[in-house]
């Protein structure tokens, strides 16, 4: 038990766990009913779950999926892809435009999803080529798609915001009849299970980390670092496609300018809050997932406190700075020294993580 606590205290998950606990406790003090979950009947006549927790879990779905992809890219390429929002907008546009061209059946939806995945993978490969082969910093490489991606989406849509109206699509964005859990949450769960299985039964995780920690030695050990980097970018492309499809299904239309706006920033923040180094190397997907839910919980808390949606950013920034300051190596070192002093232990050389 004590060993377990010590293990947590040393792990990178300490700060996100504390942040999440602080948010929960703060909300309990503010409003004791904040976390109640109730079963209500929605306007389609289904029994569905409702409450602040559910809205946090649903609202963070796209962010959680993108945060997972971003973590892998960060680990392998030692940098971040800032074009995920634009790529998701393109994927969403492809999805909507395929659906609009025919009768919507489950088969067509799957086909459209596969098509938009392929398009997103192509754009991922574009970024991946620049990063892995031309050795360009990921942020700079993805700046290209960041500046032009939403315009490409606009061009695909022919300058309008096309809508899709189908019960199937709204089921995908909200609830499937008979299942009280929101569909986006189910998608995230399925996605996480698949990713966990991939990482469990393949060497992808290990290879990604070794490429991120030391690319030269990874290559000398026979790892194809170019391919691994490319693979993480393609994987992020799939994540973008899923996020885009969820976002489109939620509202049933695609608006190239507002869909998943600023999500790249939130996704990178989620990675950082999860205690992952933005300089690559070791990663923790659980940390990134927690980061995504912390960001969404913070947003929902601020909304519940009647903060106008435009002002939320300022408060969010303060909390984020507090979290990263707490998680910074220097502050951690001081905290460890202070703890040792208080425990009257002899000063020991602090470990260099």
């Amino acid at each position, binding site marked *: 038990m004590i060993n377990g606590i010590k293990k947590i205290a040393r792990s990178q998950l300490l700060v996100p766990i504390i942040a999440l606990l602080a948010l929960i406790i703060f909300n309990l003090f503010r409003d004791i009913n904040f976390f109640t979950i109730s079963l209500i009947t929605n306007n389609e006549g289904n029994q569905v779950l409702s409450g602040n927790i559910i809205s946090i879990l649903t609202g963070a779905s796209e962010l959680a999926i993108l945060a997972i992809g971003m973590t892998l890219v960060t680990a392998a390429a030692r940098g971040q892809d800032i074009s995920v929002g634009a790529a998701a907008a393109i994927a969403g546009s492809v999805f909507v435009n395929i659906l609009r061209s025919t009768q919507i059946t489950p088969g067509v939806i799957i086909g459209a999803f596969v098509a938009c995945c392929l398009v997103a993978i192509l754009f991922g490969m574009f970024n991946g080529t620049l990063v892995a082969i031309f050795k360009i910093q990921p942020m*700079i*490489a993805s700046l*290209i798609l960041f500046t032009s991606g939403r315009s490409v989406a606009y061009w695909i849509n022919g*300058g309008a915001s096309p809508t899709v109206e189908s019960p199937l699509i709204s089921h995908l964005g909200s609830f499937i009849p008979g299942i009280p859990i929101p569909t986006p949450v189910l998608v995230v769960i399925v996605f996480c299970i698949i990713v966990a299985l991939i990482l469990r039964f393949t060497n992808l995780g290990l290879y990604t980390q070794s490429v991120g920690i030391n690319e030269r030695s990874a290559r000398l050990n026979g790892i194809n670092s170019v391919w691994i980097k490319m693979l993480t970018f393609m994987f992020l492309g799939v994540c973008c496609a899923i996020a885009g499809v969820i976002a489109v299904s939620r509202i049933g239309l695609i608006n190239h300018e507002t869909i998943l706006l600023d999500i790249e*920033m939130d996704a990178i923040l989620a990675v*950082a809050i999860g205690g992952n180094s933005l300089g690559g190397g070791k990663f923790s997907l659980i940390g990134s997932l927690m980061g995504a839910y912390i960001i969404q919980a913070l947003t929902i808390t601020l909304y519940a406190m009647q903060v106008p949606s435009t002002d939320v950013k300022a408060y969010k920034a303060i909390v984020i*700075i507090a979290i990263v300051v707490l998680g910074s190596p*220097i*502050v951690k070192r001081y905290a460890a020294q202070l703890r040792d002093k208080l425990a009257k232990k002899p000063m020991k050389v602090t470990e260099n993580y």
Partner: protein
Amino acid sequence: MTSKLDKNKSTGIETKKRREPISSTNLLLTITICTFIGMYGFAMLMWGGGFLNPQQFFDLFNNNAYLIVISCGLTIVMIAGGIDLSVGGVIALVTMVCVVYLDDKGGSVVGSMAVALGIGLAFGLIQGALVAYLEIQPFIISLAGMFFAKGMTTIVSSVPRTSGNEAFLVLKDFRIVLQNVGSYAKNGNFIPAKIEPGVFVALGIVFIIFVVLRWTRFGRNLYAIGGNHQSALMLGINIKRTKFFSYLLCGILSGIAGYLYLLHTGAGNVSNATAAEMQAIASSIIGGTLLTGGVGNVIGTLFGALSLKTINTIVVASGLREPYWQSITTGLMLCFFILLQSVILSIRERGGVKMVMPKWLRRSSSDK
């Protein structure tokens, strides 16, 4: 170092022709300047009309003085290997706070300038301290800074405001009129070209930063830190302080840029300078600054910003009026420059191609 050696040599007899290779910084700079001149010349030949009008050329500066200033700030930070995403947000915040200060609090123009500088200074101080002394990733800190600035702007005033302060409006409408340069209107009247005073502030800043980067200890330290962190440390350079000052300088410059933006538009709005940070980063990259640090030049940044804006004008002039063409061409141009840099630098690393400076440029290539 090299220049001293050169001087010693030049006192003696010129022994043999020295083939001095052009430095990465200067090579990328040359490419950018050539691109800009080539692009503008091409536009003049192709579409004539507007491009032959001197006012169009000066408008390039008038409309983008703020962009030039923040690009300079970003170049400084990027040379030291960092990044600052908060510049656009700071501009929005400065415009809004200054308008509210001028109109509601009855402030003076000088006071509003002090407010603008103060906001920039505060952002620079806090971000610099957090990045340099707490070793937090600059991306996250400046991202939070951007969120904070944008959020504060709407807290100060959620609706766009236009300043009505008379003293300020006098300053805002002040133009430097060039009597000899101008164009003829359709009815034959001569219209002299007008330049906003902000342009001179921006060009002055470019010059000052150029001098600082090239001839001061602080400037050379920036290159050393960005080029190789470890060896800079071993040379005894105070890395933390240098980094701190680079962010401080960038913060002050974004404060100034905010005031220039206000002088140009006269309005405070949260959507002011949206995505300006990305444009500034793009300008720096086109101007030959590497995000990895250690390579860069503000003169290049100036031309980078101008090229970035010229291409937009060209796209409109060539008849592609749909708004999405502008960002698509900007993306393509960025792609071109990024690939060019990558290819050139990798060829140079292998030592495949050695470029030789022309004689008249050789003196100025003393820096690496």
